[in-house]
């Protein structure tokens, strides 16, 4: 029952918040209590249940990696809910926001705990389409454009992933999600199906080259919504990959290499792109892409075989957990500098600093742990070129540090209010910060098997100490920090763009365009089409409209239809059908 409740409560909260103003006044509490069942599921040890009577058998199921992600999701939604309740206190479209918020929350929880393909897809779609409402919330031109691009990409993604899921169900012969990876490992077209899923979920994850909606959409939403978008919902795509990937069962070298190299391309490229941006939220969005790239790398390693799923997947989940909490903290943090004044600012900077460190892999944070995990697995895999990849990993740590220092720098330019001021939404932020006790302790979430594997049975505390003192793990962050300090201090500072981004946010397409005129001309038509998507509130049907606006098309198909309406043509089609069919019958 708890399974149903954990999905229904957010939905209920959404509807209540939509209907009743009284409820909206206590929306924070409402959303926090709506996350409690999910939180309980994330902390408990229940594994799953099958509900026979509900829509063609519904399965609920949790394993270690997904439990970690569920825990992360529940924490983030609770914090974001509290934050949103006070952040949007005077917002005109507050009730719509709460509605979409609750619906997306239900979808997010639902997809994590569902154990069969149908409900997984349903909840995935619910979350995707509900978060459209979050992205478009502020209704500025920027938000509208971001939202329509988001919607177009989301629909493209849905098409790919529903095809992948259909094929996967077909090859496994059952709707149960857990049966898919082994079935794909066996199936002759397993690689193809996984590739479809890679693209489909890749849209959500923001993998290269499908990411360009993300730096637009995540910053467009209000701060708490960005936090859950970047912290929790982005992980849904990762979960989708984990459902499809036959980690440890196969040796798909080409797919594995593809994923690893795309992952590193994201990790490095996105960070560099991000450096050119002037909006702190866009900065963070690029950082999310870059971090998701690292997680892509980890899954990619898994596809090469040799590392069992029971070890790799919890590690990926832990990485997601660490990144999610920290990223949510930073996203919500972007709302703070303009509102927090006086001595509270110390607390704020401390919190932001911890968040940045946690992502960059600073000492005493979960980030260090997770970086170490990646390093361990990269060292163990027999993937060709693992040495280069280790180098790239280090490089990505540097770029990440640079990117996040830049983020802090951008925040510091925001004017502080006079006096000792603290907005009411500082409280949930601080709560999230304290939930950050998990960052250093988060490895406790890992299964014992994996811990033993990493610590080589040396005992956790000894290992922990070892890690802190490990220069090898710390030098990238130091270099990054140093470079940043120099940048800020000296020559670059004057020229560093702060008003207008060096490159327009997000658009991978722009890069392609710069690559050359011939390509640009070829793409111009497609781009026009895309432009017409972006101009409107609701995009995808514009594609049809575009084709429909062609008078000739309408004329031709209209006259075809009316000629079908002529009695002679009716007769001819009658006889043609008759003859063909007669030929086929016995």
């Amino acid at each position, binding site marked *: 029952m708890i399974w149903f409740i954990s999905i229904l409560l957010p939905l209920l909260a959404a509807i209540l918040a939509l209907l009743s103003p009284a409820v909206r006044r206590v929306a924070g509490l409402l959303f926090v209590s709506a996350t409690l069942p999910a939180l309980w599921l994330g902390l408990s040890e229940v594994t799953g249940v099958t509900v026979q009577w509900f829509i063609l058998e519904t399965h609920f199921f949790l394993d270690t990696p997904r439990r970690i992600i569920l825990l992360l999701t529940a924490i983030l939604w609770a914090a974001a809910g509290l934050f949103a309740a006070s952040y949007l206190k005077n917002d005109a479209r507050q009730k719509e926001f709460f509605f979409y918020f609750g619906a997306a929350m239900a979808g997010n929880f639902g997809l994590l705990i569902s154990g069969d393909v149908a409900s997984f897809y349903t909840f995935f779609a619910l979350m995707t389409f509900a978060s459209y409402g979050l992205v478009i919330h502020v209704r500025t031109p920027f938000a509208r454009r971001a939202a329509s691009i988001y919607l177009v990409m989301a629909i493209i993604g849905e098409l790919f992933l529903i095809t992948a899921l259909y094929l996967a169900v077909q090859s496994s012969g059952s709707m149960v999600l857990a049966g898919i990876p082994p079935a794909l490992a066996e199936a002759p077209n397993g690689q193809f199906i996984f590739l479809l899923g890679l693209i489909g979920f890749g849209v959500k994850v923001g993998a290269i080259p499908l990411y360009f909606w993300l730096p637009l959409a995540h910053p467009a939403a209000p701060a708490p919504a960005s936090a859950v978008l970047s912290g929790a919902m982005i992980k849904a795509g990762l979960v989708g990959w984990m459902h499809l990937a036959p980690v440890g069962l196969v040796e798909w070298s080409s797919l594995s290499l593809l994923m690893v190299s795309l992952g590193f391309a994201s990790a490095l490229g996105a960070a560099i792109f991000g450096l050119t941006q002037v909006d702190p939220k866009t900065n963070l969005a690029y950082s999310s892409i870059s971090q998701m790239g690292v997680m892509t790398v980890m899954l990619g390693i898994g596809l090469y075989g040799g590392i069992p799923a029971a070890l790799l997947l919890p590690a990926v989940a832990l990485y997601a957990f660490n990144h999610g909490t920290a990223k949510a903290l930073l996203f919500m943090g972007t709302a703070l500098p303009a509102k927090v004044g006086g001595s509270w600012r110390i607390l704020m900077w401390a919190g932001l600093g911890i968040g940045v460190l946690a992502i960059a892999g600073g000492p005493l944070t979960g980030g260090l742990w997770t970086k170490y995990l990646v390093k361990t697995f990269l060292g163990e895999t027999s993937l060709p070129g693992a040495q280069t990849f280790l180098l790239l990993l280090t490089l990505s740590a540097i770029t990440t540090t640079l990117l996040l220092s830049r983020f802090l720098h951008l925040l510091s330019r925001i004017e502080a209010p006079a006096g000792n001021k603290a907005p009411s939404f500082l409280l949930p932020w601080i709560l999230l910060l304290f939930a950050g006790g998990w960052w250093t302790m988060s490895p406790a979430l890992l299964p014992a098997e994996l811990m033993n594997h990493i610590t080589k049975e040396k005992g956790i505390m000894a290992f922990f100490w070892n890690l802190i003192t490990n220069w090898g793990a710390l030098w990238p962050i130091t270099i990054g920090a140093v470079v940043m300090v120099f940048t800020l201090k000296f020559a670059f500072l004057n020229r560093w763009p702060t008003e207008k981004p060096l490159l327009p946010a997000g658009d991978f397409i722009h890069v392609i365009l710069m690559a050359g005129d011939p390509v640009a001309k070829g793409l111009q038509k497609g781009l026009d089409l895309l432009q017409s998507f972006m101009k409107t509130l609701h995009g995808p049907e514009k594609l049809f409209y575009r084709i429909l606006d062609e008078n000739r098309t309408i004329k031709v198909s209209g006259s075809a239809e009316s000629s079908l309406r*002529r009695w*002679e*043509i009716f*007769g*001819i089609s*009658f*006889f*043609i059908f*008759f*003859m063909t069919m*007669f030929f086929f019958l016995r």
Partner: protein
Amino acid sequence: MSILIDILLAIIMVYLAIQCLLTPRLIQSVFLFFAFGLGLALAWVRLGAIDVAITEAAIAAGFLGVLFLDALKSFAPKVSVKQDNLEDIYKLPRRNIKSLILPRVILVLGLALFLFIALEAVWMIPDGGGLTASAEALLPQSGVEHPVTAVLLNFRAYDTWLEIGVILLGLLGVFVAGGIKLYKKPGASKPDPMLRQVILFVTPVLFLFGAFLLYIGKTGPGGAFQAAVLWGAIGILLHLGGKPIFAMIPRWLFHLILTMGLGFFLVLGFLLIADGRTLFEYPPAYAGLLILIIETLGAISIAAALTAIYANLNQMEEETNEVEPTT
């Protein structure tokens, strides 16, 4: 020898059917249709289906033919005017008329192929045996002696009941489609003294003949539908003779007459269900009597419906013009 008659009849029917559709003049077409209907009735006499022959002659050729003739009243004159100038009728440029030829050629080819296949299907038909034997075996229990009546009103009474419903439905449809005011009684045509005398003379004869057909239906060819058409003919004649029968009676009576066949049939069926039987499962002892009542009421209802259909169609042009034509 007799087979020659059949072949001749078949050829005549096919010729009439084709000619009826090909002739350019509408009025010819309707008269050929009359002739075709009579030919069909003859064919049914040749096939020993006297009941069907009477029904065909009366309803399909007679009643429907009268309806078509009546329709000519509105269509015919304008058609003959337009005959002089073909292009005006079609209102199409020449090119389009040319484009009609190809589809028609293809259609005729398709028809020819279809014809061969159909002929093969009919020729190769296995002998299924029919239901004569079982009908004969159960005939004594049916309450009537004529097998067709037994099938119509007992073995397959459900179909017959629905069919009475279809006629009523057809009348409702004519009301709707013709844009006829439901509550306006059909008015009378201009009375013609000659016609009136004839009608006054013919009416009782038709009535008696109808009653005879109805009664004879129990033992031989004849029955409700045939009687109904004759009685319906009375109504039509009276209408033409300036005595629109339904304008003379109160509306509730009209409705009662219209629905009593269907209603009695149904109420009887429901009573039988209440009695623990199934719909239309008559108690064998009363079967003959019940069937006679049903036939009588049914015939009156059908006659009323046919009369009303004719009267309303006949009055259509004078009736309306209240609904604005919209384009």
